[in-house]
């Protein structure tokens, strides 16, 4: 088990848990980032920049701090 920010670029995984308040979880959820979804990590911008991931063919950028709250099971 690892977190989204630790996942290697180009690696896939399944979201196991999202750590954070209700507002945070709901916000991620509304963009289909939720427990059980399989994701692909596209990139992480240098200098602690955002992570880009793909869910169902749709790309989303989220900050490194947010990414560290998304627990992922690599596949």
């Amino acid at each position, binding site marked *: 088990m690892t977190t989204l920010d630790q996942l290697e670029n180009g690696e896939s995984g399944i979201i196991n848990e999202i750590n954070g308040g209700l507002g945070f979880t709901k*916000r991620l959820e509304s963009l289909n980032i939720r427990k059980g979804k399989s994701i692909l990590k*596209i*990139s992480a*911008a240098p200098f602690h*920049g*955002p992570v880009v991931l793909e*869910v169902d063919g749709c*790309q989303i950028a989220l*900050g490194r*701090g947010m990414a560290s709250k998304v627990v992922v099971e690599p596949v």
Partner: protein
Amino acid sequence: MKILLMGNPNVGKSVVFSRLTGVQVTSSNYAGTTVGYTQGKVKLGKLVAELVDVPGTYSLQPSCQAEEVARQMFQEESPDLVVSVMDATNLERNLFLTLQLLESGCPLVLVMNMWDCAQSKGVHLDLSNLSQALGVPVVALTAVSGEGLKELVEVMEESLKQKDHYQPKISNMSDEKRWAYIGQLVSRVQRIEHRHPTLLQRLERASVHPIYGFIIALLVIYLTLQVVVGMGEFLISNIFDPLYYQYYGPFITQVVNSVAPNGVINEILIGNGYEYATSFGLLTTGVYVEFAVVLPYILSFYLVLGVLEDLGYLPRLAVIIDSLMHKVGLHGFSIIPIILGLGCNFPAVLSTRILEGRRERFIATALIAISVPCMAQTAVIIGLLGPYGLNYIAVVYGTLLVIFITMGMLLNRLMPGESPEIFVEIPPYRIPHLRTLLQKTWTRVKGFMIEAVPFVFLGLLAINVLYLVGIMDYLTILLSPILSQLLGLPSDAIGALIMGFLRKDLATAMLAPLQLTAQQLTVASTFLAVSFPCIATFAVLFKELGVKDLVKVVGIMMGVALLAGTILNLIWSVI
């Protein structure tokens, strides 16, 4: 009757709106182009209904002001029909909002937009099955080409006629249940064929790559500058200058001279002749500055911006630049309002509504108003300083950049709280649709002219009157110590600085006849760029920020303008 057009951000609601109403609204390939709402009339057979283009939202629980507008409109406007626009390539996520809408019991028509993209991506949808499950009609649509539009109009008409007999099939459920329901539904109606990544998809990944992403960003910025300036210059020297000097100038001089051969009116209208770009007649220099200096740059800027927007590049630039923007208290997505500000500050301030909190909105707005010069002003600065060489232009923009960074870092330190993290959808690259692109450019150019031209004429009239009644002489005596001591400018520059309240481009152009040195021009241009916003921006700042924050912004602005001008003047005098 009222119809709301709703859906996730960037599913093409505004394109559908333009198609249905004929009202042109700006649409781009990124989330958050629509931040307020636009209304228009739509004809459905014999019915005429009010159609509202609502800002995009992912759910009815808003996370920024633009989304809050959407929620409010839906819950307070009591629409007769909702047209829920979905991206056919992204069924699952889009269904979340649609289900929330359905749960409210409001009659609804479901539009599967970007149908062509779904086809080419190998996404197969069973629409009749979907329609049956949700109990509402579903229409496949490719809004950019208009395919499926006729059917949509028919279905909307039918739904409005039947609205009193509408029986909702979906009842309220918890978020968890809703996702589970969506999961089942999607597995029943959607089949995805595997396709190999296309060239565009490879480019998408390269654009956010830790190394290639930066190279691509630098390349895009360089090319953008080259094309905007190159095209602007080309248009001026080959089209607008000849038109003005060979046809318009002689013509208008003749007309005015035959109506009012001399006296005050003649003086105000044509100054001392069209041959001099600096005569400051309403119909000579006023027209020349707006149409032959500014308009060509506005045109080329919005054309290039449109290509970048419709391609979907800007959100990727936001990712690349995110860590830098955090240093000034913002996150990467704020680069979009800032880039819009390089065109015109007015829509840029409005577009800060896509940012999450009041803190970011204040910082972004202040930075735009203080240190982002609009294209109209840039055009005149290029015209004025260009003959002295690129270095002087670089001094002005370098100073503005330094102000941007210092101000941003200061505001970030001084304002309580910290900048939120970026969280944004990155659209797929799409080849810009030529007709949509040209239409958008035209809408923006027209918007600029409607907003700018009256103020230019009003401003020139005001300045002329102020000179005629002698108020200007009084102001000159009053303010000349500041001008000469701090900024090193002659006292007759006061007219230009006062004009800065109304229009920045015209104000900068008024520096031309003063025979300033290149150094003085850099000081005056920088001062004008930073100081008091033009009247249109002032109005929108007032609307968006309220009095208290507006006073703060204007205070900072005047202080920074004087400080920057003084320092620049000092540096020049030392060199």
